[in-house]
């Protein structure tokens, strides 16, 4: 612990206490900071130059002195609460030089008084150097790192003032309650996690993490708070993972025991969702749920197998990826959603998993081919009806739909199947636009033949033709050669066929002795 003079402002002690609470092991590392210089030795210009990392500390751009003054007032009105928070960092750092610079405690005490004073009456110039203001005005310093740096430089009223203004600006741009505003990008977070894992989650100490990460613009405090969040989230997720694992286990047991039940007829399957399992929405392709049950929950921040598919963190990156999020709107940076997000990978991460937060990135890329993103829990139904032919039914060789051995196609198309989006666009000239709205309609007829209506036969596609029906159809053709061609494809040129056959060494004449 630092030997802090009791004469210091009580707020400082409070802040310190808070900091200590936040990171029990952290205080000792304050000594790591370099405080072996006095104000005079410092070239403030250097600080600002160094701290111009736009990516890490993006907030403070042009710090207008006028802005600062208004901010002071705002803060004063808010009761100086933000002060305390914001000052946590610099005051902590300020404590360190107590040993070195005897005047610091006085300064610190002054600082707080000054803040209040300044907030009240814009007296920022108390002992302040004009150049500090100027530097502040034109410097690109972001957030509290600058504050910290200045604090490190053994605070004077000027630096404390700058610190304050930094805070004000940052608080203006952020929510105001943050310490150093660090943008935890995925890259940054990844390095953080690496460092933590390297040290061991229990032994991970912010100062060590900082060392390992080796990023100048991060303060120990940034790391500390981030570590705290990380730990809490990890615990939460591990607990959930355990719960899921046990659930999955139980489920497997039941499934094994319930094997006999699985042989129910197809129609019952669709009634299953009513039993009590939340029915999977008609959107996600099924393979994913299967995979998902088997896959352990992803711990926040840890790399997963599926990382290439969707980067899980930060969640705002997910927003563009799932424009059609059915369940949860793109989560605001509010904490619960934020931290839960990394888990929500995979499409069918459904209520079955018991997770409240359902961000479902739906990579259509999961399925290379189908233009039908959703899979339809409908028995193989595919009417092949050139609508022009629907009415007539001359042929005996009428192919029946396996699912619906009936006459009319149209009614069957109204089956309560979920949307099977059949892009009619597949055929450049859909036969009859009026028919298209029917979701089940998929015209197989080539566009060229649409209008022709050569056949009066009804055409239906059979998804799973049985051998008997094929045999029957073939037999029909053989016995009744006069029947019109079902599809009306353009016949091949006789010559080319014959030529080809001869090349193959076949005599075409209908083979004798068939």
């Amino acid at each position, binding site marked *: 612990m630092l030997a802090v003079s009791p004469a210091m402002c009580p707020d400082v002690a409070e802040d310190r206490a808070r900091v200590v609470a936040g990171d029990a092991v952290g205080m000792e590392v304050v000594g790591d900071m370099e405080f072996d210089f006095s104000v005079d030795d410092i070239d403030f210009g250097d600080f600002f130059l160094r701290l111009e990392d736009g990516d890490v500390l993006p907030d403070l751009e042009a710090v207008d002195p006028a802005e600062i003054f208004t901010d002071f007032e705002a803060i004063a009105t808010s009761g100086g609460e933000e002060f305390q928070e914001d000052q946590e960092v610099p005051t902590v750092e300020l404590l360190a030089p107590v040993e070195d610079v005897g005047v610091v405690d006085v300064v610190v005490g002054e600082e707080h008084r000054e803040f209040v004073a300044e907030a009240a009456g814009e007296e920022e110039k108390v002992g302040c150097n004009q150049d500090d203001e100027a530097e502040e005005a034109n410097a690109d310093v972001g957030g509290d790192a600058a504050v910290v740096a200045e604090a490190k430089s053994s605070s004077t009223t000027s630096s404390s003032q700058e610190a304050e203004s930094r805070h004000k600006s940052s608080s203006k741009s952020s929510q105001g309650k943050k310490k150093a505003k660090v943008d935890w990008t995925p890259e940054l977070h990844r390095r953080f996690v690496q460092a933590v894992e390297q040290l061991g989650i229990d032994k991970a100490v912010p100062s060590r993490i900082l060392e390992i990460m080796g990023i100048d613009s991060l303060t120990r405090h940034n790391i500390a708070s981030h570590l705290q969040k990380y730990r809490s989230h990890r615990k939460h997720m591990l607990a959930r993972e355990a719960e899921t694992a046990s659930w999955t286990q139980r489920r497997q047991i039941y*499934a094994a*025991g*319930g*094997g006999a*039940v*699985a042989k*129910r007829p*197809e129609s019952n*399957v669709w009634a*299953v*969702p009513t*039993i*009590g*399992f939340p029915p999977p929405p008609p959107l996600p*392709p*099924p*393979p994913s749920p*299967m995979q998902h049950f088997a896959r352990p929950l992803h711990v926040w921040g840890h790399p997963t197998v599926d990382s290439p598919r969707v980067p899980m963190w930060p969640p705002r990156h997910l927003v563009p990826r799932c424009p059609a999020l059915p369940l949860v709107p793109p989560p605001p940076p509010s904490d619960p959603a934020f931290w839960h997000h990394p888990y929500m990978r995979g499409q069918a991460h459904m209520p079955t998993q018991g997770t409240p937060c359902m961000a479902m990135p739906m990579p259509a890329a999961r399925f290379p*081919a*189908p*233009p039908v993103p959703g*899979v*339809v829990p409908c028995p*193989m139904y595919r009417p092949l009806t050139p609508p022009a032919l629907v009415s007539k039914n001359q042929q005996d060789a009428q*192919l029946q739909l396996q699912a619906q051995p009936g006459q009319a196609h149209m009614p069957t198309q109204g089956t309560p199947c979920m949307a099977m989006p059949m892009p009619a666009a*597949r*055929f450049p000239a859909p036969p009859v636009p009026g028919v298209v709205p029917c979701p089940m309609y998929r015209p197989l007829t*080539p*566009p*060229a033949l649409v209008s022709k209506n050569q056949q009066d036969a009804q055409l239906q*596609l*059979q*998804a799973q*033709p049985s051998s008997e029906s*094929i*045999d029957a*159809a*073939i*037999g029909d*053709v*053989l016995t009744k*050669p006069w029947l019109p*061609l*079902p*599809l009306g*494809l*353009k*016949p*091949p*040129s*006789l010559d*080319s*066929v*014959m030529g*080809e*056959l001869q090349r*193959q060494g076949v005599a*075409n004449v*209908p*083979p004798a002795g068939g």
Partner: protein
Amino acid sequence: MGDSSSSASYIRMVHHLIEKCICFNLSKEECIEALEKHANINPVVTSTVWKELEKENKEFFETYNKDRVERNIEAETMQRIQKMLSDAAATAVQLAGELAW
């Protein structure tokens, strides 16, 4: 005997048969097999006629083949869904049974 006419009619018949197979969503191979099995058509003949038909009706066959691929995927997917649902049903039944106690 009009060889050409009988050949022509034969070819036409094969053509007809192939079209019927297409109505059943058969692949080329399946069609060849079916025709051979049920109609004693020389596979070479079937194959040749199919190829020629494909040449003459390129667009149609392009779409047809694409559809088949998708249909396969879809069928497979649906199978999986059904399996899942039946598994879920089994589990649900089990759970219900357990809860009853």
